[in-house]
């Protein structure tokens, strides 16, 4: 009997394997990809409900006792991320049915998507620092394959920068993990949370925390380590950009929340001012970078950077309220960002170009697409009934409570510039008259509109159900910061050191 936490890992891995073997049968590959993703989505939703009632779920790989083997654990934050990963992969697969070239599909496009979901799910479920490194590498390898699939010059150039800078971040992670083992003698997160408070050389722990900040900061695209993102995210096919834009940088943020929330809790209070500074710079630089761009996907790529700053702000406010707002904002942003990429990408797919100057007239030609864009972009900016408002409101309230006026001002001001960029795309792509003859262009079918419509509906639901959503994210933040409960759930009531001593005796 296997524990249920292994299922969201086994199913996509098995699906990817089978889909690779029968890669010539296009229909079957699609069915397998869809089935595996639907399973993970269903499991993610089930996990969300289970954790709300039964608390943290923990299991040990191969039955090894806690600090010795690899721990798998899921709390509210893991469950939110797991469910959203499956949702994004699902809409990406739906969008890929109508937009991906058959040539790319033959080169294992769907297996790579499943492997990406596999890697992300593993990263969200692991309770071991070195194991987290391994999951990061799995999802990176899958993303390397997806970003260069097609092999155009732009993809190879962007892909090279993406690969090299991410490898550098991974090396920082590896060095940090090695140093943690040297300092604390364990890599299990619960055991680390227990030991790092009583460690002999606290200054060394602070230095190690710096390594993790650089490693996850570069993966999350925080300033000044974000340059790989706008250089590469607009080059692959639209579906891949949408998935990466929604998901990948947030895996870095998740790792920051997880590692600094539990393992380096004491260092977080020291590093909080630095994280807030980085968050503010990231917001401003990202949004200013977007203003200079004249291509739909490149504008949106810079906005990923800007919004990652808000999530880092949630961490930098170093408390349950800030982290809860950060988690809510992250959940909203994952959904809305992908929706924007899918809508802008659909317009790009229809027009044949993403350059603002050559686009236009979409509001008259595709009114459904225009309405979706308006809703999603207002959600991104943070107009009240939509989901973005409540995430930003929570962050700003937490900032005011902490009397961090500067970051509050920056967070509020950056929203205005976000509105500017969204209106720029609205004006150029949808509102203005088309200069060229549009009548020969294809029309948007259900297959092109449905994926974005699903995400916009989720965003509206998150906005209308803001009270339960905030409640859940507060619970997730409490669980993420609750090291005592973590140690109890993973190692038992006496703690991990007691288990280790008992075995050594």
């Amino acid at each position, binding site marked *: 009997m296997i524990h249920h936490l292994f299922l969201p890992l086994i199913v996509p891995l098995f699906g990817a394997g089978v889909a690779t073997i029968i890669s010539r049968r296009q229909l079957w590959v699609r069915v397998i990809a869809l089935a595996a993703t639907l399973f993970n989505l269903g499991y993610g939703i089930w996990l969300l409900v289970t954790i709300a009632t039964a608390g943290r779920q923990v299991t040990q790989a191969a039955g090894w006792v806690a600090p010795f083997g690899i721990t798998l654990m899921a709390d509210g934050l893991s469950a939110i991320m797991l469910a959203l990963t499956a949702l994004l992969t699902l809409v990406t697969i739906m969008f890929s049915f109508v937009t991906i070239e058959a040539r790319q599909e033959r080169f294992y496009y769907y297996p790579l998507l499943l492997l990406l979901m596999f890697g992300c799910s593993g990263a969200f479920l692991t309770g071991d620092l*070195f194991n987290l*490194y*391994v999951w990061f*590498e799995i999802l*990176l*390898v899958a993303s*390397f394959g997806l970003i*260069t699939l097609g*092999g*155009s*010059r*732009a993809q*190879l*150039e*962007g*892909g*090279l*920068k993406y*690969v*090299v800078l991410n*490898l*550098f971040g*991974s*090396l920082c992670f*590896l*060095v940090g*993990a*090695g*140093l943690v*083992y*040297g300092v604390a*003698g364990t*890599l299990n997160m619960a055991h680390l949370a227990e030991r790092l408070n009583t460690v002999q050389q606290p200054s060394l722990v602070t230095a190690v925390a710096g390594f993790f900040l650089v490693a996850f900061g570069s993966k999350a695209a925080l300033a000044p380590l974000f340059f790989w993102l*706008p*250089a*590469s995210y*607009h*080059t692959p096919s639209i579906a891949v950009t949408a998935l990466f834009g929604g998901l990948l940088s947030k895996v870095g943020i998740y790792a920051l929340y997880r590692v600094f929330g539990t393992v380096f809790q004491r260092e977080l209070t020291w590093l909080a001012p630095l994280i807030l500074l980085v968050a503010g710079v990231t917001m401003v630089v990202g949004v200013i970078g977007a203003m*200079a*761009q*004249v291509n739909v996907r490149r504008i949106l790529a810079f906005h990923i950077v800007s919004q990652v700053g808000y999530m880092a702000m949630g961490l930098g406010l170093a408390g349950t309220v800030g982290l809860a707002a950060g988690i809510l904002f992250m959940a909203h942003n994952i959904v809305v960002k992908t929706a924007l990429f899918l809508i802008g990408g659909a317009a790009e797919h229809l027009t044949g170009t993403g350059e603002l100057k050559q686009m236009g007239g979409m509001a008259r030609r595709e009114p459904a697409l225009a309405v979706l864009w308006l809703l999603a972009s207002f959600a991104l900016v943070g107009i009240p009934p939509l989901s973005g408002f409540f995430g930003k409101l929570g962050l700003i309230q937490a900032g005011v409570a902490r009397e961090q006026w500067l970051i509050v001002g920056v967070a509020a001001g950056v929203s205005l510039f976000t509105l500017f960029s969204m209106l720029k795309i609205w004006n150029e792509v949808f509102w203005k008259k088309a200069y060229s003859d549009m009548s020969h262009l294809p029309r948007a079918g259900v297959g092109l509109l449905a994926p974005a419509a699903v995400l916009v509906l989720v965003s509206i639901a998150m906005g209308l159900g803001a009270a339960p959503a905030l409640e859940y994210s507060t619970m997730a933040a409490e669980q993420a910061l609750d090291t005592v409960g973590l140690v109890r759930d993973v190692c038992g009531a006496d703690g991990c050191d007691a288990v280790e001593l008992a075995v*050594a005796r």
Partner: protein
Amino acid sequence: MNLILSLVIGTLFAGGIYLVLRRSVVKLILGLVLLSHGAHLLIFLMGDRLVKARTPFVSAETGVAPADSADPLIQALILTAIVISLGLLTFVMALAYRTDQAVGSDDLNAMTTTDEL
């Protein structure tokens, strides 16, 4: 032994960072190779103790590891890390080769088309 290894790791990191900052893609890859070797050796150094010719086994009679046994976990960690970096660096080499074909140069300054407005 610890001092020698520390010096080796420091040299590998210094050389790796120098090479990564060069403009040539080939030197960039060599720099990544050096950096990953440095990281692997660093993990090696982080074990409980560095001892020669000791097995990391638990004694069958007493069920207790001898006091001077080697640390088995670092070896597992390094093995994992080496395998991962082997695969990733192979991918980078293939990618660099294809990029060189597409761009017609291995100068990183020639690869700016995705950043230009």
